[in-house]
Every structure is written in structure tokens, then in C-alpha cells.
């Protein structure tokens, strides 16, 4: 059996608060794999830890504990040289293409920058730049332009071309279409699907937009306050989610169909996310959960097999109770 391209094991990213003695547990025990050529989506609302997870994988944020392996190799704590060597295999595309590009650099120089850093000869680099521009559908005539002469969608193509320059095997896509207009989003999503089919890329796709995620992802991980609430293959999770948070999240998306939307029953959560400084000891979702029982406030559930994959919910999945899990192991 081949090993998954990316393996994340019990990853934690904690931020100690200077002077105040507290700790923000942005990511608190997250495990998953991204197989080669597949799309795994991390979804959740602001503060759930999805972006911090991605940054820790890329070494942009130091992991407090846990392990990240790429192609079988431990990459959790690499030095600068190790990171630079890894840049050929793993790249990130950020949400806002305008912020991700130097306004004074030409498109060709921006796309060629990773090649220059890796010491490519200029003639070979130039050939590669035009090859990836072609790959992402940018006309060669754009090479000498600066980002301000381009539209938002074209800029995101430039950012994707730059990420592809070194022929990576994994792209981390952090809300890649959220800053784009509706009519441009579908162009970029189609491009990402084409590139995956052509190049066999693996995607770690981070998004708060569940309609987009459902369209593009093979597997989905729903995060809530630094932990995974539910995971599974896209179809079963969307068809019949197990975790009440996933249910609420799905029911909250307004459908672009007035007849269907007005017939829907919506689960409206009360209250806001708890402060990341005061995450409850039990289920992190218990403070807003319509199903919460007294035990949910005390015991932190673990991921256990569910009809749609795995879910961490004591009410729906009795095996998610860590005590039950221990008892089962002892039997």
C-alpha cells in the first residue's frame, strides 16, 4: 500500500499569551491524510484553526507538538535549508491575490521568483515561466505587465502559476476563490480541477464556503475551535451529516433558489463562538449545540466511526465518549 502524500498526526499549535499566562489552542490535536492526486478540504468558521493547520504544515507557524510527514519524511521541524528544498514539493495559494503579488514586479518576475530562489538559469526559468502561464490560461503578452493592469481573476491565475513553477505535488489553497467575484469564481475552480487532472496534484483546500467545497473536494474535515468535529467522504457528509455542528453549518447556507430556500428548516445556533482563551473542557461546541447534554460540558468527545465517516459527538455517537472507548479497548 502506498503511503499518503501528506500525513498529519495529532498536530497542535498553541500560542502562549505574553504576560497573561493563558494559552490559545488554535489547533488542538488534528490528524488527517492527503493522498496524492486528491482534494481534502478543511472547512469551518473563523477561528476554527483551519488556516493555522495549513500554516503549521508549511512551517509558517511552528507546531507545538505532533507530526507532519510529506512523502514519508518527517517535515515538522525543518531548518531554512530543509524548508527551501521542500518548496519544490509543496506550495500555498492565498485568498487575496492582490496582497500576494508585489505591485512593482512584472508578472513574469513574480512567477519566476521561486525559480530564481532555487537557482534556475535564466533561460530555463523563462521557458518555465511561459509554460506555467500557458497552463493557467494567461496569455504570454501579460508577462511584462504589473499586477495593477490585471483583474482579480487574472491575478489569482498569476498566483497559481507561481505556485506551480517548481512543479509541486501538493498545493495548499487557502480560500482561493473567496475574494473573487461570483462570475470569476467558476473560472478559477474549473482551472483548479483541470490542473489536478492534468498534473495529478494533491490539494489541501481551505474554505468556509461549503457549496464550493462540496463541488471540488473528495474528503472533508469540519473543524470547530481547533479540533475536528466531523470528517468523511464528501457525498455522505453532505447527504447526512452526523455532527450537529455540520448540520447547522449546512442548514445555514442560503440556497440560490427561492422556492427551495423558503421550504427549508434552518437550525439557527444561539450565541457566538466561545473565546479561544476559554474553550470549554468538554465538547467545544456544547455552548451552542441544540442537542447538548450535561455530560457534553464535562467530557471531550473523540472521533469515532459514524455513518458518514467519523464524528466527535457524544450524543449521536456513543463510542465518541473516551470512557466508552477505553472500556471497549479493555474488553
Amino acid at each position, binding site marked *: 500500500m502506498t503511503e499518503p502524500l501528506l500525513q498529519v498526526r495529532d498536530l497542535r499549535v498553541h500560542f502562549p499569551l505574553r504576560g497573561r499566562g493563558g494559552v490559545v489552542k488554535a489547533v488542538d490535536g488534528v490528524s488527517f491524510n492527503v493522498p496524492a492526486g486528491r482534494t481534502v478540504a478543511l472547512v469551518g468558521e473563523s477561528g476554527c484553526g483551519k488556516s493555522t493547520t495549513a500554516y503549521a504544515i508549511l512551517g509558517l507557524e511552528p507546531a507545538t507538538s505532533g507530526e507532519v510527514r510529506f512523502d514519508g519524511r518527517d517535515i515538522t521541524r525543518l531548518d531554512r535549508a530543509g524548508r527551501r528544498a521542500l518548496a519544490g514539493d509543496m506550495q500555498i495559494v492565498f485568498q487575496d491575490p492582490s496582497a500576494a503579488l508585489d505591485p512593482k514586479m512584472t508578472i513574469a518576475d513574480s512567477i519566476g521568483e521561486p525559480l530564481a530562489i532555487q537557482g534556475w538559469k535564466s533561460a530555463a526559468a523563462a521557458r518555465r515561466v511561459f509554460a506555467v502561464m500557458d497552463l493557467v490560461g494567461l496569455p504570454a503578452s501579460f508577462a511584462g505587465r504589473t499586477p495593477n493592469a490585471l483583474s482579480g481573476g487574472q491575478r489569482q491565475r498569476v498566483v497559481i502559476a507561481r505556485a506551480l513553477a517548481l512543479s509541486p505535488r501538493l498545493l495548499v489553497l487557502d480560500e482561493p476563490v473567496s475574494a473573487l467575484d461570483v462570475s470569476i469564481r467558476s473560472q478559477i475552480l474549473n482551472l483548479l480541477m483541470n490542473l489536478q487532472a492534468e498534473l495529478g496534484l494533491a490539494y489541501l483546500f481551505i474554505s468556509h464556503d461549503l457549496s464550493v467545497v462540496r463541488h471540488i473536494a473528495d474528503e472533508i474535515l469540519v473543524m470547530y475551535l481547533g479540533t475536528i468535529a466531523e470528517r468523511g467522504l464528501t457525498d455522505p457528509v453532505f447527504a447526512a451529516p452526523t455532527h450537529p455542528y455540520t448540520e447547522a453549518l449546512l442548514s445555514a447556507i442560503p440556497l440560490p433558489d*427561492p422556492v427551495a430556500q423558503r421550504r427549508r428548516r434552518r437550525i*439557527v445556533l444561539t450565541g457566538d463562538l466561545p473565546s479561544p482563551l476559554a474553550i470549554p473542557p468538554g465538547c467545544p461546541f456544547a455552548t451552542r449545540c441544540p442537542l447538548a447534554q450535561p455530560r457534553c460540558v464535562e467530557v471531550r468527545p473523540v472521533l469515532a466511526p459514524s455513518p458518514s465517516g467519523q464524528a466527535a459527538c457524544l450524543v449521536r455517537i456513543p463510542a465518541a465518549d473516551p470512557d466508552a472507548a477505553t472500556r471497549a479497548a479493555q474488553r
Partner: protein
Amino acid sequence: MSAASPPAADAPLLVVDDLAVTINGASVVDGVSLSLRRGRVLALVGESGCGKSLTALSILGLLPKAARRVRGRVTLDGQDLTALDERALARVRGDQASVIFQEPVASLNPLMRVGDQVAEALRLHRGLTGEEARREAVAMLTRVGIPDAERRAEAYPFELSGGMCQRVMIAAALVCQPKLLIADEPTTALDVTVQAQILGLMHGLRAEAGATILLITHDMGVVAEMADDVAVMYGGRIVESGPVEELFADPAHPYTRLLLATIPRLDGRRKEHLRTIEGVVPTADQWPDGCRFRSRCPLAADICSRTPPLEPVRSAVRRAACWRTAEAAALA
């Protein structure tokens, strides 16, 4: 209240007639006419640069400095707002009509307790004293779903979440019971579960108080949920309008049809290629002559170099500005 002649009860509350706005001479809103009846929600929908926000801001004279209204009239409950000077407009704002903006945190005064920000309109427009205004402000904060409003009224915006700040904005906008609420992307900056709360709140206000809402959004899901009527904008013009169910069921304008078809759907075929609208929105100084969508329209023909009028299509209550609505049905 103004002493304009009392309008008939069934007359529209808000009428925008042939509004045109330019920025440095470039046409950003061109010939927009809207009519909003009492108790209804009209969604003005389109992508960035379509002119929807500038249209909304024009209504209360809130255009940014660079923008200029060059044509058109806005009438609120029979009163011509475009004839008012800045002082008179300031009396209308927050009293007869209010705006809530996309960024609740940026739109609140960071140095003022949120209760005072809600009470301010009451002191200004209703002449209430400090204590009366405070009491009413707390009651309003409770109505928009802020728990423990008595205590939260003492908080500064940075102490509240984004969803709470948007509730404060809505409370401040509604506390004087305005006839018209203009909501400019009211949930765009919020998480989806918080968006659901705010949309629920707006539904409630409508049902209880019969609020009349002009909703500005790019989100077709929010339109489908909230609106009675829709006006779709492209290139500073209304390209299509009508009741929400009819319009979504069978859009008449190629732009509306394609826009709806580009959105990934929760019930669509996964991993399939999505419909796209080719090209990009031209900048405001580079609109093509005639129909402004024709540079991206798959149905564009010679006739489209003439500006199509917004004319009845499909039914008596629908309008579209397109020469080729008969062919559009085959598009998507």
C-alpha cells in the same frame, strides 16, 4: 416630518428615477430607476463595480467625494430627497431612513460605548434625555437578540464579536423606527452561522414591524432567502428586475442566467465543469457602446451596439434590458 402632500397608502415608499452617477466623468450608475413598496424587500444584486452600492448611497446623499450624482430624483414617502441640503438630509438619516454597512466593526465608533451609539439617534431625532434614550437603547439591543443587553450596552465595539457588532448596527439603525432600511451587504463579513442569525433577525423585524428593506448583496443565496423583488445590475445599469421566484425560475437576461449557472450548488453534479462568464468586467471608462454586457455575452449581435431599453418580458411584472431575451432561454 416634512410637510409634503400626503402620498396615497399604496404609493411606493421609495422611488428612484433615472439616477446617474459619475466618478471622474466615468459613468458608474446610468439611468437606474427603482420602486419599493411598503413592507417589501427589494434586493439590488450584482458583482463588484456594478454600481449597486453607489445607487444605495445616492439615496441618502452619502456618495463618496469623488462621485457625483449627475441626474435623477429620489423620493422617500413623497419627499424629494435630492432637493434637500446636507442639514435636511442629516435629519432624514437615522430617522426616516437608515443604512447598515458590511463592516460592522469599522462602522461603529470605537471610542463610544455601544449603548450610547444606539441612544444617539434617539437624542438627535427624538429629543429624548440621556436616561430615556438609554432605556430605549437597551430595549432595542434586547430586541435584536443581544443577551444581557443592560450590561453589553456599556461595552465598546472591540469587546463584542462581529455578529454582536452587526446587531448593534441594526439596533442603531432601527431605534427611531425608520420607514426604510438600506442594508448594504449586511452579512458578507460574517460567518455563515452568524449570517443565519442576522438574516433570521431581519425576517423577524419584517414580520413584526413591517420593515421596508433595500438589500444590497452579491450573494444569490441571500437574495433567494430575503427578497420579494430583485433588480440585477451590471455596468451601472439595471439589466433585469422582477419578483424573486419568477426571476430565479427563468431569468430573462443572459447575464442573470449565466450568473446563476456559475454558482456551485449543493444539489449539483460534483466535480463537473462549472459554467463561466468569459472575460472580465470592463472598467467604468471602457464600457462598450449599447449594451454594456455585450463584450462578454455569448448572444451578442449587431443590434446590441444600441442600448436596449428595460422593457416588460415574460410577464407584466418583469423587465429586462436585452434585445435577445427570446434566445436567452437556451443559454444555461
